[in-house]
């Protein structure tokens, strides 16, 4: 009987506590639904940023979005839905920022090129008419 150090009463208490904790966990899990829609939205945002060429024009923001998206997907598999929602939301804004930066950089490039063209054209005309 040396193998029974615990009293039956304390064992009971421990069991109850463990069950309570388990219930709490389950209820926590149940209160946060899987953010399937958010994940889809974020995936779409990352895809858009990628096809716009953000890896070239906004590499930091784009990598951040990619990393967070992967982490969100992992969290989904592990059923850590609250974490998955947060990560995917952040991935979405990061991807959106990367996309906007890419579009801004491209627009600026086009603007610069046109202005340079105009300058050259004006110069050519001025020379011709002289």
């Amino acid at each position, binding site marked *: 009987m040396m193998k029974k150090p615990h009293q039956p009463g304390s064992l009971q208490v421990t069991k109850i506590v463990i069950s309570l904790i388990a219930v709490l966990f389950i209820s926590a899990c149940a209160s946060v639904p899987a953010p399937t829609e958010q994940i889809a939205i974020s995936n779409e945002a990352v895809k858009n940023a990628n096809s716009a060429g953000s890896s070239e024009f906004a590499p930091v923001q784009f990598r951040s979005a990619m990393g967070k998206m992967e982490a969100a997907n992992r969290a989904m598999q592990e059923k850590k839905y609250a974490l998955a929602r*947060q990560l995917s*939301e*952040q991935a979405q*804004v*990061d991807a*959106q*920022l990367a996309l*906007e*930066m890419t*579009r*801004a950089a491209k*627009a*600026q490039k*086009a*603007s610069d090129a*046109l*202005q340079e*063209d*105009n300058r050259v*054209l*004006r110069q050519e*005309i001025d020379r*011709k*008419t002289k």
Partner: protein
Amino acid sequence: MKKYISLALTLLGFSILAGCATPKNDQLADAHHSYNNAAINPQVTNLAALELKDADNTLNKADYALVNGESTENVNHLAYLAKQKVMIAEEAAKRKTAELAVTNATASRNLTRLQARTAEADDAKQQVANIQETADQQALALAAANARAARDQEIIAQQDVLLKELNARKTKRGLVVTLGDVLFNTNKAQLKSSGTRSMQKLADFLNKYPQHKVLIEGYTDSSGSESLNQKLSERRAETVRNTLGSMGISNERIGTQGYGEMYPIVANDTAANRQMNRRVEIILSDESGNIGKR
């Protein structure tokens, strides 16, 4: 004393309340700072109002979460979203500014091209006008030259007609009009009326062409004394000069010379030949008034 204590307690209570009302979160404060910077940028408020509004909404959610005592992690999350959205608004404003510049630059380019085309067209038009003007001037000059040539031709034709009427001969000294002996009274210096008519034609010519001068030379045959013949030839030349003078030709244009028996045209062997040698020759000068010497 009691009053002071209660005042101090009230102040303490306020400060505790105030502390509770504004819980601290560095990331949220940072997000607010970013937002405030963007909100005073007219480029962002004008061109990215929607994006900025979205950032503002998220910022409010973060504030609300902080006040409601939600977890720091959740507040940080919302603050991060807000901050990223502020940056999105700023980038959107940059993009739209650049897009506007592209639109303006395209318009400006089209305008510049138009100006260039207009300048080229004007230039070409000017060149055509210049060529036309040159052609017009050449045509005018040609017409003037033709008119001059025609006038010269006419003058020459008129002169020819007059000279023909005068029975002028072309010699190396110039045109020579010979008044035969028959036009003078025998052994006299007086002109017959037929001789006067001949002179009138010459006077008409000289009046019409004032640049011409004449030299009048008198000749006789060999009959009679030499001195008499010399005098007769001189007088006959003088008579012609006076006749022309009476017809309005000034003396300055008329030279006279008597040669007597010298320079006969034919031998003085028959009466007919002698009559040919009795004559007055009138030599017309060229247009400069020169007369070839004998």
